[in-house]
């Protein structure tokens, strides 16, 4: 069922307008600036969530504006997949923004940070809620370019270099996306996301279009070998920005790939052609390389960034396997990884904020000094490893069963090996912080609430609580939504 409602564009437009408003008022009052930034994310979240009932009644909400950009038209679409990802993104964005109001106090150029953060949110929401490729592309560029400002925030030589690398790759990605959009338009005559896919012939041009999408989304999602901007850009950005980039922005790449696979090319076509093998192989390399390189990193944020590369490989693998359970795992992992990686970056940020220790080897005894922060970190890290009943376990379980459905035992082994590698690079951190001889020597006076402002502590704890508890709820709505999103993609595909 489909209804038309202009309300779909509100989660995009409100932050877009608020970004301008913040830019206008921020010189007068920093309080107003901060609260408006939080408001933008909150509004976005609420404006998405209000459609819960409609969505759960199997209804897709669309809004078309054919008069904009004449031959193609701009359109928005809110279905299960979009609703789920939009809820996750706006909710985490809200928590991270609250966190950043306290974290950014020590930073310079706050007046530049906030409007661009809100603008990036608008771009991300636009990407998720767009109803066709051209709208998608439009917001994708908005998001990518405004994220550049977040990355180079420190404006050091390293940051500028990382930002340059990001920018170059982003532009390459954007252009290859544009190429693919044009190719699809030339073949099918329209570019809107259609359940079951557009009527495309299998030609060389279609394959080139697929490659273009793969490059464009792969760059955003950190797929090896297009990931090289990621471990440079995430560590230099301020911690809340790293949480946004790593936790949320990477997901738009994977999200786009799901959209394109199931609603542009269509499942039928993807099953005929052999492109999925390439996608699976790239995902497998991504998983292994990301996890392996993470083991060797000493800078905590670099380690987390490489971990993100590996984890994005899970999602890409889930998309490439083309089985229902694998896709459930992939979509659920978008949610799981958003929460896990955000809380890891926020916890790492809290530690850098309060002690300045970026190197993993310096974290001795931090569990005594900052017990809450380190507990958050531990919960998220164990969830990354896939310890039941934490949230990361469920996605791994579904992905592994999906891989078995696709008949590839090798990928199951790879997933398990990667879990072990995750353990190898997360566990020494936890161990250093809580246990060992050094801890007793480094015993410092206990601090109340980790000596952190409440605005930093509360979002971290909220994220960790979700990671810890959502699988133990009698009604796991995240999994339910991921399942429904998958079934809707699969049933219309048949």
């Amino acid at each position, binding site marked *: 069922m489909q209804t038309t409602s202009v309300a779909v564009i509100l989660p995009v437009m409100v932050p877009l307008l608020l970004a301008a408003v913040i830019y206008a008022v921020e010189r007068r009052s920093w309080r107003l600036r901060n609260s408006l930034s939080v408001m933008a994310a909150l509004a976005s979240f609420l404006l998405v969530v209000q459609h819960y009932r409609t969505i759960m009644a199997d209804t897709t909400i669309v809004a078309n504006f054919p008069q904009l950009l004449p031959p193609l038209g701009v359109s928005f679409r809110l279905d299960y997949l979009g609703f789920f990802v939009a809820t996750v993104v706006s909710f985490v964005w809200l928590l991270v923004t609250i966190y950043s109001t306290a974290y950014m106090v020590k930073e310079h150029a706050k007046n530049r940070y906030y409007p661009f953060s809100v603008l990036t949110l608008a771009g991300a929401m636009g990407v998720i809620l767009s109803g066709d490729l051209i709208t998608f592309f439009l917001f994708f560029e908005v998001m990518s370019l405004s994220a550049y400002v977040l990355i180079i925030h420190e404006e050091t030589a390293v940051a500028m270099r990382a930002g340059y690398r990001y920018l170059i790759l982003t532009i390459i990605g954007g252009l290859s996306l544009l190429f693919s959009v044009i190719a699809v338009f030339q073949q099918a005559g329209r570019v809107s996301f259609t359940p079951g896919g557009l009527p495309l012939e299998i030609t060389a041009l279609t394959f080139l279009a697929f490659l273009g999408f793969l490059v464009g989304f792969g760059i955003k999602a950190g797929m090896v070998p297009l990931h090289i901007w990621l471990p440079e850009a995430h560590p230099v950005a301020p911690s809340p920005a790293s949480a946004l980039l790593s936790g949320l922005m990477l997901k738009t790449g994977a999200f786009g790939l799901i959209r394109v696979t199931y609603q542009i090319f269509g499942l039928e076509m993807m099953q005929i052609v052999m492109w999925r093998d390439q996608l699976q192989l790239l995902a497998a390399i991504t998983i292994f390389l990301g996890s392996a*390189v993470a083991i*060797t990193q000493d800078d905590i944020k670099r380690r987390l960034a490489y971990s993100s590369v590996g984890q994005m490989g899970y999602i890409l693998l889930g998309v490439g396997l083309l089985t229902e359970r694998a896709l459930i795992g992939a979509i659920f992992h978008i949610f799981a990884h958003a929460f896990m990686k955000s809380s890891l970056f926020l916890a790492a940020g809290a530690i850098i904020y309060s002690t300045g220790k970026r190197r993993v080897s310096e974290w001795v005894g931090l569990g005594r000094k900052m017990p809450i922060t380190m507990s958050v970190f531990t919960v998220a890290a164990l969830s990354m*490893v896939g310890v*039941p009943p934490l949230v990361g376990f469920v996605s791994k379980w579904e992905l592994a069963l999906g891989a078995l459905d696709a008949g590839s035992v090798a990928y199951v082994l790879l997933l*398990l090996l990667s879990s*072990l590698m995750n353990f190898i690079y997360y566990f020494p951190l936890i161990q250093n912080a809580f246990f*060992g*001889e050094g801890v007793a020597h480094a015993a410092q006076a206990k601090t109340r609430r980790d000596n952190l402002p409440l605005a930093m502590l509360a979002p971290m704890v909220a994220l960790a609580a979700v990671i810890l508890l959502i699988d133990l709820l009698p009604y796991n709505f995240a999994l339910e939504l991921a399942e429904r999103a998958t079934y809707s993609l699969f049933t219309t595909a048949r």
Partner: protein
Amino acid sequence: MLSLDLLLLVPILLPLCGAALVFLLRAHRRLQEVVVVSTAFLTLGAVAAVYHVNPGHRLELIFIHLVDFGLSFRPTHLGALFALISAGIGALVSLYAMSYMRSSHSQTRFSSFLLVSLSGCLGVFLAGDYFTLFLFFEIMTFAAYPLVIHDEDDEAMRAGDSYLYMGVTGGLVLLFGILLLVWSAGTADIVPVLDRLQGGAVNPYLIAIIFLIGFGVKAGLIPLHVWIPHAYPVAPAPATALLAGVMGKTGFYGILSVLAVTLSSSLPSQEVSALPINIGFALIWVALLTILGGAVMALLQNNVKRLLAYSSISQMGYVMLAVGCAAYLGAKGGLPYTAAVFHAFNHAVLKAGLFIMMGSVYLRTGSLELSKLGGMAKVLPLTALATLVATLSVIGVPGLSGFGSKKLIQYGIDKAAAYHGEPVLAWVGPLFMLGSVLTVTYLIKLYYGVFLGSYRGRGFSAAKEGSIIPAVLAAFAGGIVAIGLFPERVINMMARSATATAVDFGMMAEQLGAVKLWTASSYIAGVIPVALGVVVFLAARRYRFGTGPVPCWLSVEALLYRPVTQGFLRFCCNYVTRVEGGLCDLYDRGGSVSHSVFRRVKKFDDMLGEGYETAQRTTSLVVEQARGLEQGLGQAYDSVGQAAEDITRRIRNEAAGDNGAAGQRPEMWNPQNVTLGSLVVAAVMLMVLLVLYTVGSRIWQ
């Protein structure tokens, strides 16, 4: 509606709540102790209730949507039995820990994680499917880590790493097995699914082996045992007792469930599947390796707890041997099945007891090296007596608990050897005897080294034992004696746990009925290994065998695990990082190549500009020249015209003046005729030629 099934949640949630309470009561030591002990005993009560109710009314609790796949609790008889044993040991251990840990640091951490581990263990035993089992298995693995590394010195941290990395790897292997099972059988329930597995996409042998490896890590099968000799000695005595007595049994329970239930056929088919037979056959040999390897290594140790750790491995080998026989015999395997359960039960009690007893020794002496102990019988008479009872029981002296189970295992071996007439299996009996002899030897070494002779250490600590520790020791010793005196009752209790397994119940009763424990020949058979063991011990003492350091080539860890893990990490560090670096280089080089291409393009662009400029300059020059030429030509035409006019005019004038000299031809080339005008014309013509020549030579040069 409050149903009886909710009883199942109590043993799992109660310790968790207790742990939370302990954590909240950080500031109140006394209250903490009360909470820990009362929680442990209440849990024991709850488990006893479950055990009591379960045979009549099969308890079942299912949460379909919890943790994706759904959790279910449906204890098998075996599970309920082991939950009871675990809870009992857990309660005694917590009581003991209360006074043992009183002077230790981080008591809050120890107590709360002790309770969480207990909850995990009970969850494993009460789980109704492998998924739930795995969940609690992982909780148990992680929760026991703080117990292992409690001392937090370098050795403890290394042992903890060994424990946890092995544990996590084992867990992942187990998860792999469960995934394969769920995928090919469609269910994770602990029910017979062999029919569904056969002819499926996954080879059932693969599933069996993966499960054996996954659970084998916890059970301590050689070569998966390497964490045990590290972790048991460094953990505090109560933690070791829990690890050896309870946690090791989860591995055993898992293996027995897989072999006796999951990999058995639900249909009474005529054709007996070869799978349990082959797997059982293989397991018998692995178990023998475990028995003998563990015993030899125990003999070589000089640290009391390390010796006991290897002894624990060796004893789990006995249990696994019985499990292997049971699987090999299939439906006729009632006797070895009972033997396995009985021996596992005995081993749990004995090893937990022995570790606790050695803990008391450690409390007084502060050392566990055999070279620094001795003569403790005078100092700790009660402990010495309790240890004597436990040691004799492990050896298998009649009248104590170990006697019955060892005897049953021997009967089981005989049955297995006779079953298919496999000639190789005839060797199992003698090797088993060899294991018994070695067991006697190392236990004498232990007892002699600790309690007899003279004290070789440096004084005692003043710590008073209090009244709790002797009470706990007495409870263990009393239990051992009680089991030994009434083995039939215990055997019946164990045999009942075979309900709903592959084992044929009637046949088992028949087999057990035929077993005669209290006969003279069985006493004599029990004495032989003891006598041999004493001889070996004396011989070894004479030649000072086993007092030096353990040769490193005996360590599986040094031979297998360390090279593999280090190789893998080196692979990650060196090669993959190099690939990653190479990739970055590639991009950078791509960048610089494109830069140089751009530079080339710029140079080309410059050249083009230059070319245009040159062309322009040339053009303007040409144009200038052309203009000069045109001017020259114009002048030339002008002059020519002038000259022509002059000539005409002159001719006209001459014609007018020649009226007198008519008919006379005018003489043009007469030198008088060469006027200024004709000279000018000639000069102009020359100039034009010259200009044409210079322009032409410039252009074509």
